[in-house]
């Protein structure tokens, strides 16, 4: 009986607690915006912000997939090379189809990109789940593999997109709908779908369960192998979507495309409040994390305070401070 009376305040507290935890990355974001404004008033201009957020789209989209992988207790270091590889395959294919199909080569290329992404994710997933290899090592291996493949495909050079397709494809990155750049819309859409799957579908529950406690998941009849593998496939598809948005921005695939994206992706996920140990994933936090990262880089360009040599140091320090801010906002 007394337990019942205690229940009500307890529940309320939880609710509040959740909100605060999830607010972390957004607090860091706002803090950064404020600092940015103090340093350079152009920082908050619509153009600048639109640019920055649009740019963060690649990392954000990939990071949505990474949120799945990480919350299921995995890790994927291959996303950057995978993005390069998918971009390469896609461009080569579109270029080959362009003479016959004309502009239709673009949707065809996109479809193929998605399939290749799915396959790459499946490949990663199987090595990790069936081969029982630590995700870190397995995806470090496939990172090397994808990176080499794109180098091979490009003969160590560049694979540019066919001039005839270039203009038709351009709007996918540079276009706007209702004034909002398309990449921002795409990343919001990906995050919305991701959040829906992770929070509103059975699969999301299972993903978190597998990440939180593999044994318990198994006892509950959840196939750990299937769940994890699917997470990597989701990651693959997200990488493909990012690649699709990426092509029009730079118009070419090179062996250095997507270099070190994996670190940015993981950073975005962690800044977003998802723990690397697995369990609950925070899609919207991840999105905020990706924007935070890009804002920091933007701030470095807009401010004139820092020697070019020290940009990396300041960036590193800001990331650490952002995490501290987030930590403090929680308690």
């Amino acid at each position: 009986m007394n337990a019942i009376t205690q229940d009500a305040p307890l529940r309320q507290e939880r609710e509040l607690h959740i909100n605060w935890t999830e607010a972390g990355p957004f607090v860091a974001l706002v803090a950064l915006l404020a600092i940015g404004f103090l340093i350079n008033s152009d920082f908050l201009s619509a153009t600048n912000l639109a640019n920055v957020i649009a740019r963060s789209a690649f990392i954000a989209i990939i990071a949505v997939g990474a949120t799945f992988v990480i919350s299921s207790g995995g890790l994927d270091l291959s996303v950057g090379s995978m993005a390069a590889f998918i971009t390469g395959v896609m461009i080569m294919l579109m270029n080959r189809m362009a003479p016959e199909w004309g502009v239709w080569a673009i949707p065809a290329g996109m479809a193929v990109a998605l399939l290749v992404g799915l396959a790459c994710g499946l490949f990663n997933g199987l090595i990790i789940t069936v081969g029982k290899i630590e995700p870190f090592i397995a995806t470090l291996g496939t990172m090397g593999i994808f990176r080499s493949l794109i180098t091979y495909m490009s003969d160590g050079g560049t694979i540019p997109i066919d001039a005839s397709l270039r203009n038709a494809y351009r709007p996918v990155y540079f276009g706007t709908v209702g004034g909002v750049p398309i990449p921002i819309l795409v990343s919001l859409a990906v995050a919305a779908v991701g959040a829906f799957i992770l929070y509103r579908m059975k699969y999301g529950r299972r993903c978190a369960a597998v990440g939180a406690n593999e044994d318990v998941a198994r006892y509950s009849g959840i196939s750990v192998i299937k769940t994890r593998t699917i997470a990597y496939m989701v990651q693959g598809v997200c990488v493909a979507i990012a690649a699709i948005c990426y092509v029009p921005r730079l118009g070419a695939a090179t062996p250095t495309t997507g270099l070190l994206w994996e670190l940015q992706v993981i950073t975005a996920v962690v800044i977003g409040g998802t723990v690397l140990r697995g369990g609950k994933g925070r899609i919207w936090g991840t999105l905020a994390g990706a924007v935070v990262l890009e804002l920091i880089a933007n701030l470095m360009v807009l401010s004139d305070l820092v020697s070019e040599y020290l940009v990396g140091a300041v960036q590193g320090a800001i990331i650490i401070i952002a995490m501290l801010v987030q930590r403090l906002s929680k308690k």
Partner: protein
Amino acid sequence: MSAQMLERPWSRLVTVSPRVGEAALDASPAEGTAAPLLRTHELGKQYAGVTVLSGVTLDIFPGEIHAIIGENGAGKSTLMKLLSGHVAPSDGEIFLDARAVSFNGPHQAQDAGIVLVHQEILLADGLTVAENVFLGRELTRHGMVDDRTMHRLAARKLAELGCHASPRALVRDVPLADRQMVQIARALLDEHRIVIFDEPTAVLTGEEVDRLLRIIFRLKSQNIAVLYISHRLEEVQRLGDKVTVLRDGRTVGTYPGHSLSQPDMARLMVGRELSALYPPKTGVRGEPILQVRSANVPRLVHDASFVAHRGEVLGFAGMIGAGRTELFEGLLGLRPAKAQVELDGRSVHIRSMREAIELGIGYLTEDRKGKGLLLQERLAPNLTLSALTRFHPGVWLRQRREAEGLQEAVSTYDIRLKGKSTRAGQLSGGNQQKLLLAKVLLTDPSIVVIDEPTRGIDIANKAQIYAFIRELVARGKACIVISSEMQELIGVCDRVLVMRQGRIVGEVSAERMTEHNIALLATTDGALAADAANPSPIKEDAP
């Protein structure tokens, strides 16, 4: 708390009647008409060549409650894991409805209608209560998980069990007892034909036990078979239609439950006569050793003051959630708290468990799996983990001495290890508890705080642990026992403080120390409680 139980405190039951042996049932089905629902034939299990279980033949009928008892490490949990598909048998067969079955994983057993509530709590800490209850069986509406319905159903199921944890709370934030209830709720969510409970009451207190037993009777009335393991023999006696006794991995026999007295059960389990469960309270109360004034743990404990003396066993009673664990975790620097603490008259400030150990305070946690033992680690490192400095003076580890220490602990505490089971996690539940006790006592504390000392411990070993406690205080140390078993508190303590909703609400000692008085204090408000407690309950020692 039923009046019947109150009249049979354990200490009066320890003389054993010698005539039990003949009571053994014939192994063939006793019920003439009904066919057994589940039957095992010569079931056996070996781990890496070491036999843990062998030749177990058992018949389970629909609508019967079948209790399994046995010493720690007898193989009860192993048998249940075989029946529920968690572990594959090495020998023998399992028949369900007279058809041989072999389960490839617990899920298949569940599909066949058999579900196990584990002895060790197996939940995903980072997920919510409701998510855990419905894990793997999420309800959906239009393809979406239907959280509202799941929360409602989970809350209802838990309420039936008398648990009021919020379905939205993270499992890691709810107390141990509630976690056990979540586990039970999960098992009872679907209709099953056989429900297996492996020591479900180890972390529960009286009222909750009663509620659980009522639920089990209801299962029985629905013609569901229940397998029930417990070291609390009064439960076994209340429940068991049949009682199967396991010893060293073999069945001793199956007996009609109601004809078996508790001492009979004890004797069958142990295979020898048992001496008195509780040693005589010979302690002479000495100097105050630990004085605590206005201890506060934010939100959980309010203004608790008490004194513990050398040579006395001080008990802490209370309902689940009363804050006993939190009080001591707070005092020992394991969670944020404020308190004025005096040790031997000297004011001390304890900021971490390390300082507490250095000051001579040992603490045995109630959560042995999560906070007590490194389950993947061998036994010796576990044993010496809190006493590294004491055990290994100088620079390096003395592994030989450590091995000897383990040997000593194994024989002193009667820790049963089978062959390769050298990882702490591979010990049976009760043996883990003994290892944990050995670990805490290895620091040679002058004050020992034991949170649930006999959780999952068999009757023979209980007596042994009580004897240890007495021996400790006889050597001029102080012992604080937090327990949810009132008989245990009454049997072993010189004085019992009762907590309710984070406050110390009274003290009972001597002849006033009865289940009735303690229960009254633990559940009711001021006026009534004052009646139960001693004339000056709280202020007696606290200046």
